[in-house]
C-alpha cells in the first residue's frame, strides 16, 4: 500500500490516490467519515502547480452551474465556481450550489462501485430471489458478468419473448431494441399534470415559454407564487433573480402549505393552503373576480382578452356542438349544479379563510403589473388534470398575459424566474435514434403492479391512446439509467417486483437502490471520468465540461457496456453507436448555436479551425463562431451578456395576445386558449384511469384532504388524518448525492411537523416519528416547525430506503415507501397527494444519517 508515500508526501500519483482511497474504504466501512483522503493529499499537493478544469455537475437538480476542479497530478485538490467574468445582477456568474461544491466527494467517494459484482446466491433463472436486497456480494470479472447477463437475456428471449424484457431506456436499451425490443415505462414525474394538459388547450407546452424573462419580471408590482421554492428546487441563480425583483419594489404573496426559504427571502405574505387544493382555491378566486368585477368602478376582469383569445369561458363563447350550459362561468357561479364555488366553498377545502381568498383575487387586479407563477408541485398530485387549464383561465380572466410586467405560468426547475427560448444550445451528438419494436410501456404508477400482477393498462407509451388492458409477463429488469425503484411511487410493490422476476441488472456509480435489489451490478463512470460534454440549464448559458480523471477502478461507461452486450447478443454495436464518444462530443460542439444580437437569428457558437479538427482527430468542417474552441474549453461556459433593453427579452404569449387570429395558438384545436377543451376531456376520460370535465373543476383527489376524513359531513377523521408533501430537498438532486457524507452532515433530512400537530401527538424536536400510509411505513427524526400548516407533514423527497426486513419499516425516510401507486387522470404520479398517520416511535431512536454506514460492498 502507498500509505508511506502518502504520509511522507514522497509522491502523489493518481494511482496511489485510488489505492489510498480504497484502503481507507476498507478501514472505514462502519464510521464512513467523509473524505478518506483529506489532509495528506492537500498538504502534498500544496506547492505543486495544478490546473483548473471545468467539471460536470450533471444532475437533474433544477439548476445548472459552472463548477471547476483543481487537478494536481490527476488528483482533485479542491473546487471553485464561476469566475469567468465579473459578477452583476444583470450578467451574473453561474455560481454552484451546496451540492455542486461537494461533487468531488461524490466522484471520489469511498462508496463508489468499483468492480462488477454478483449476488452470492444468484443462479441462472434467479436463485433465492427473495434474497435480493439482503444477499452478500461477490466480485466478478467483466467477462463473467457480461457473459452471464447476455446469457440470461438470450435465455429469457428464447423461452419467452421480447415482451418479458423490461428496461429503463439508457444505452443498453438501444441494444435491446435492436435485439427485438423491450418493455419500457413512461410517466409524468416532474411536471405532473402539466405534462399533457397544456399541450392541447393552447397554453404553453414548454416550461420555458409561459412566463416573461427575468429582466422583464423586475417590472412587476406583485408576484403571486403558488408552490415555488427556487431556494431549494432551482438552485443556482433563480432565487437571486427573484431577489432583484424584490429590490425593484415588487411585493410577494405565497400560496403554499409550507412557508419555505424562498418566501422567507422575499418576505412574502404567506397564505397557507392545503396540498392538492389549488383548484378549489382558484375556483374561489374566479368566483370572487366575477362577483366583484365592475367594468366601470372596479374593473378586475379583462373581458376583451377573454372574448378574443379564449374559448368556453361563458355560454356565449362555447364551441359549436357543445351544451352551452357546460361553460366555466356557470360552473363557478353554480348556476346549474346549485353549488356556487365562492370563497366560502373554497375555504372549506383549501383551509384558506374566505377573506384571504378575496384578498388574493383582488391582488390579481388587472390594472396592476402582476406575475402569477406556479411550480409543478401542486400538479404533481392526483386528479388535478385541469389545474394547468385553471391557471390559464385565471391568467386570461385577469389579463396577466402577453404584456410586459404581466405573466401567468410556470416558474420551475431550470427555467425558474426566467422564461423564453434557449438563447444558446449545444448541437446534436448525431447518434441515430433506434426504434423499439415492442410497443408495451407501463405508466409509472402501475409499473410495479404490472410486473407483480401480470396485467396493465396500455395507452401507447405516452401517446394517450384509449386504454386497453394487456397481459404481460416480465422476467428481466434492466436498469441502465434513472433511479426507478427509489424514485417512483410504491416502492414496497417495487421491491416485490424486483424479487419476483428471473433476473435484475443495474448499472451504477454507487450501490443505488436499483443496484441494491439486483443480481448483478456494473460499475459505471461519472461525467468526471468521461471525455467531456455539454450541460444546459437557464436560457442564457451553456456549459462545456472536460475530463477530470481517468475512470476509477474498473468503471466503464454505459455505452461501453452496451457495445459489449451487443457483441455477445450477436448485434453489430455500430448500428447503435456508429461513432465514438469523441466524435459525439465534437458534433455537439460543431452544432452548438447562439443567438445574434438582434435577438432572433441563430448562429454557430464555436469557431473551429482545420487545426482543431486535426488535433481532435475527428470528422468535421471549419466554421466561424463566437468563441474559439480552446477558449471555450478553458472557460467551460458560453454565456450571453444581458442588460435591460437588449434584444434577448421575452414576453410570453405577446403575439397571440396582439393578434389571436393571425397568430393562433399552435397547440389547440381552435387556435385559442381553451377554457373548454373537448380534446382534453375526451383524451383523459379515454385513458381509463379517472374522469374529468372539459372545463376546470374540483375533483377530490383519491388521497387528498377529503380522504383524510372518515365522514366529510361530520368531519370525523379517518385512519390517515395527515397530508404529506415531498419538498425537493437541498441535500440531494432526487436520489443523487444522498450518499455524500458532507451533504448528510450539512442537511440532516428531518421530517417537518407543524407545532400544532406535534403538540397533539406529544412530539418534540428530535423525536423519532413513525409515518404510516396505506402503502408503507417509514421513520424520520422530527423537526417541529411553525412553517408548516397544521395537518400537513413535509417528508423530503429522495432519501434512500433502508428497509428493516424484520419489522417492514423503512428507517431511511424514503418518500416512495409512503407514496403509493395510485393512477388517476393522465397517469400522474400524485406524489404531493399522499395521506398518512403519524405517531411517536416506540422502538430505538434513529441515528443521524451521517453516522450510518455507507453502502459499501467492496
Amino acid at each position, binding site marked *: 500500500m502507498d500509505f508511506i508515500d502518502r504520509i511522507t508526501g514522497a509522491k502523489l500519483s493518481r494511482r496511489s490516490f485510488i489505492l489510498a482511497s480504497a484502503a481507507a474504504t476498507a478501514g472505514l466501512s462502519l464510521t464512513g*467519515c467523509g473524505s478518506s483522503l*483529506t489532509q495528506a493529499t492537500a498538504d502534498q499537493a500544496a506547492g505543486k502547480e495544478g490546473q483548473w478544469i471545468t467539471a460536470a455537475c450533471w444532475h437533474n437538480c433544477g439548476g445548472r452551474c459552472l463548477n471547476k476542479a483543481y487537478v494536481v497530478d490527476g488528483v482533485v485538490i479542491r473546487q471553485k465556481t464561476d469566475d469567468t467574468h465579473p459578477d452583476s445582477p444583470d450578467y451574473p456568474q453561474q455560481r454552484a450550489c451546496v451540492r455542486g461544491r461537494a461533487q468531488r466527494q461524490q466522484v471520489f467517494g469511498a462508496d463508489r462501485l468499483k468492480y462488477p459484482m454478483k449476488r452470492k446466491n444468484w443462479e441462472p433463472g434467479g436463485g433465492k430471489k427473495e434474497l435480493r436486497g439482503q444477499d452478500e456480494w461477490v466480485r466478478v470479472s467483466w467477462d463473467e458478468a457480461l457473459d452471464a447477463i447476455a446469457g440470461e437475456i438470450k435465455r429469457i428471449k428464447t423461452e419467452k419473448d421480447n415482451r418479458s424484457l423490461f428496461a429503463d431506456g439508457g444505452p443498453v436499451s438501444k441494444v435491446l431494441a435492436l435485439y427485438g425490443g423491450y418493455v419500457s415505462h413512461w410517466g409524468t414525474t416532474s411536471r405532473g399534470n402539466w405534462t399533457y394538459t397544456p399541450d392541447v388547450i393552447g397554453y404553453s407546452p414548454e416550461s420555458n415559454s409561459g412566463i416573461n424573462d427575468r429582466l422583464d419580471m423586475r417590472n412587476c408590482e406583485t408576484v403571486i407564487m403558488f408552490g415555488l421554492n427556487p*431556494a431549494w428546487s432551482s438552485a443556482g441563480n433563480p432565487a437571486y433573480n427573484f431577489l432583484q425583483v424584490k429590490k425593484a419594489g415588487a411585493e410577494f404573496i405565497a400560496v403554499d402549505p409550507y412557508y419555505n426559504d424562498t418566501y*422567507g427571502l422575499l418576505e412574502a405574505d404567506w397564505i397557507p393552503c392545503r396540498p392538492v387544493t389549488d383548484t378549489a382555491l382558484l375556483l374561489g378566486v374566479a368566483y370572487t373576480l366575477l362577483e366583484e368585477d365592475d367594468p366601470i368602478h372596479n374593473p378586475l376582469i379583462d373581458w376583451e382578452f377573454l372574448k378574443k383569445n379564449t374559448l368556453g369561458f361563458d355560454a356565449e363563447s362555447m364551441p359549436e356542438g357543445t351544451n352551452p350550459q357546460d361553460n366555466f362561468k356557470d360552473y363557478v357561479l353554480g348556476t346549474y349544479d346549485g353549488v356556487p364555488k365562492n370563497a366560502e366553498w373554497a375555504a372549506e377545502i383549501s383551509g384558506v379563510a374566505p377573506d384571504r381568498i378575496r384578498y388574493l383575487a383582488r391582488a390579481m387586479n388587472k390594472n396592476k403589473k402582476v406575475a402569477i407563477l406556479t411550480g409543478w408541485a401542486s400538479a404533481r398530485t392526483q386528479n388535478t388534470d385541469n389545474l394547468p387549464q385553471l391557471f390559464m383561465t385565471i391568467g386570461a380572466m385577469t389579463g396577466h398575459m402577453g404584456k410586459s410586467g404581466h405573466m401567468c405560468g410556470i416558474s420551475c426547475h431550470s427555467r425558474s424566474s426566467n422564461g423564453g427560448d434557449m438563447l444558446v444550445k449545444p448541437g446534436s451528438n448525431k447518434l441515430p435514434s433506434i426504434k423499439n419494436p415492442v410497443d408495451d410501456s407501463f405508466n409509472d404508477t402501475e409499473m410495479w403492479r404490472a410486473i407483480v400482477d401480470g396485467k396493465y393498462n396500455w395507452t401507447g407509451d405516452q401517446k394517450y391512446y384509449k386504454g386497453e388492458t394487456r397481459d404481460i409477463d416480465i422476467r428481466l429488469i434492466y436498469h441502465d439509467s434513472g433511479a426507478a425503484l427509489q424514485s417512483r411511487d410504491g416502492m414496497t410493490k417495487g421491491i416485490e417486483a424486483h424479487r419476483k422476476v428471473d433476473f435484475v441488472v443495474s448499472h451504477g456509480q454507487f450501490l443505488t437502490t436499483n443496484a441494491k435489489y439486483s443480481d448483478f451490478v456494473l460499475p459505471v463512470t461519472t461525467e468526471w471520468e468521461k471525455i467531456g460534454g455539454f450541460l444546459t440549464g437557464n436560457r442564457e448559458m451553456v456549459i462545456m465540461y472536460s475530463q477530470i480523471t481517468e475512470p476509477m477502478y474498473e468503471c466503464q461507461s454505459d455505452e461501453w457496456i452496451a457495445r459489449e452486450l451487443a457483441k455477445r447478443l450477436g448485434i453489430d454495436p455500430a448500428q447503435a453507436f456508429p461513432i465514438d464518444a469523441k466524435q459525439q462530443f465534437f458534433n455537439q460542439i460543431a452544432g452548438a448555436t447562439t443567438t445574434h444580437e438582434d435577438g432572433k437569428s441563430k448562429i454557430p457558437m464555436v469557431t473551429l479551425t482545420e487545426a482543431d479538427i486535426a488535433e481532435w482527430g475527428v470528422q468535421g468542417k471549419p466554421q466561424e463562431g463566437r468563441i474559439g474552441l480552446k477558449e471555450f474549453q478553458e472557460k467551460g461556459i458560453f454565456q450571453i451578456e444581458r442588460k435591460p433593453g437588449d434584444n434577448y427579452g421575452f414576453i410570453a404569449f405577446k403575439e397571440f395576445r396582439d393578434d389571436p387570429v393571425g397568430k393562433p395558438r399552435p397547440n389547440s384545436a381552435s387556435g385559442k386558449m381553451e377554457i373548454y377543451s373537448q380534446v382534453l376531456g375526451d383524451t383523459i376520460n379515454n385513458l381509463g384511469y379517472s374522469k374529468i370535465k372539459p372545463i376546470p373543476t374540483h375533483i377530490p383527489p383519491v388521497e387528498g384532504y377529503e380522504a383524510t376524513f372518515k365522514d366529510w359531513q361530520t368531519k370525523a377523521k379517518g385512519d390517515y388524518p395527515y397530508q404529506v408533501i415531498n419538498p425537493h430537498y437541498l441535500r440531494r438532486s432526487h436520489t443523487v448525492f444522498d450518499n455524500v457524507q*458532507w*451533504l448528510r452532515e450539512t442537511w440532516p433530512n428531518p421530517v417537518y411537523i407543524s407545532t400544532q400537530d406535534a403538540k397533539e401527538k406529544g412530539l418534540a424536536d428530535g423525536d423519532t416519528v413513525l409515518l404510516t400510509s396505506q402503502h408503507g411505513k417509514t421513520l424520520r427524526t422530527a423537526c417541529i416547525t*411553525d412553517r408548516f400548516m397544521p395537518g400537513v407533514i413535509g417528508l423530503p423527497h429522495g432519501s434512500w430506503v433502508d428497509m428493516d426486513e424484520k419489522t417492514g419499516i423503512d428507517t431511511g425516510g424514503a418518500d416512495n415507501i409512503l407514496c403509493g401507486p395510485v393512477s388517476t387522470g393522465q397517469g400522474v404520479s400524485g406524489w404531493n397527494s399522499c395521506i398518512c398517520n403519524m405517531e411517536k416511535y416506540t422502538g430505538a431512536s434513529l441515528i443521524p444519517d451521517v453516522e450510518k454506514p455507507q453502502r459499501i460492498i467492496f
Partner: protein
Amino acid sequence: MMSQYGFYFDMTSCIGCRTCQVSCKDKNDLKVGTIFRRVKAFETGSYPQPGIFHYSSTCNHCESPKCVEGCPTQALHKLENGIVDHDKTKCIGCRYCTWSCPYGVPQFIEELGQISKCNMCKDLIEKGENPVCVDACPMRALEWGELEDLKAKHGDSVSELPLLPVSSVTKPALLIKAKNIAKQKGFREKEI
C-alpha cells in the same frame, strides 16, 4: 497603519443554502465533524405568521481576540492585516481557545491533536482573491474586505444580535445586515 480585514453578512439575502459551509470544507479539506463556516437556521413567530432567518458564522478575526490572549503557545496570533491565524507548529492542542472564544470558533481535530479554524483564506487573499466562502455564495450575501470600508459601504449593519455574545468582549471584525426578526428575542434554532 495596521489594517483589519473583516466579513460582511447580508442576512436579508441569505437563503440558508449552506454553500458557504461546504465550499469552505472543500477549501480546507475538512472531514465530517469539523466545520469552519457554519450556517444555522432560526425560526421566529408562530403559525400562520412564522419567520425564518439564517446565520452564517465563522471566525470574526476579532480586534481583541480572547483566543489569542489565552493561547499559551502563541499558536493563535494576530497578523498585520488583522487576520487571527493559527500556527500548527506551535499548537499543543490544549483546547483552551475552544473555551476562550466567545463564538466557539476553534475546533479541536482529534487526528491532528490540534485545533483548527478559518484563516480567512489567507493564501488566496495574498494572491488578490476573495475568500472561498465569499465567492461561493449564490445569493452574494457575503462580502470581505477592510472592515472600515465595509462599514462605510454598509451603514445599516450591526455587529451584535440577540443570538450572539456581546461584541465588546472581543470586538469582532464582523458586520451583519440583520433581518428585523433577528433583532428580537424569542428565536428558536431549527434543523432544516
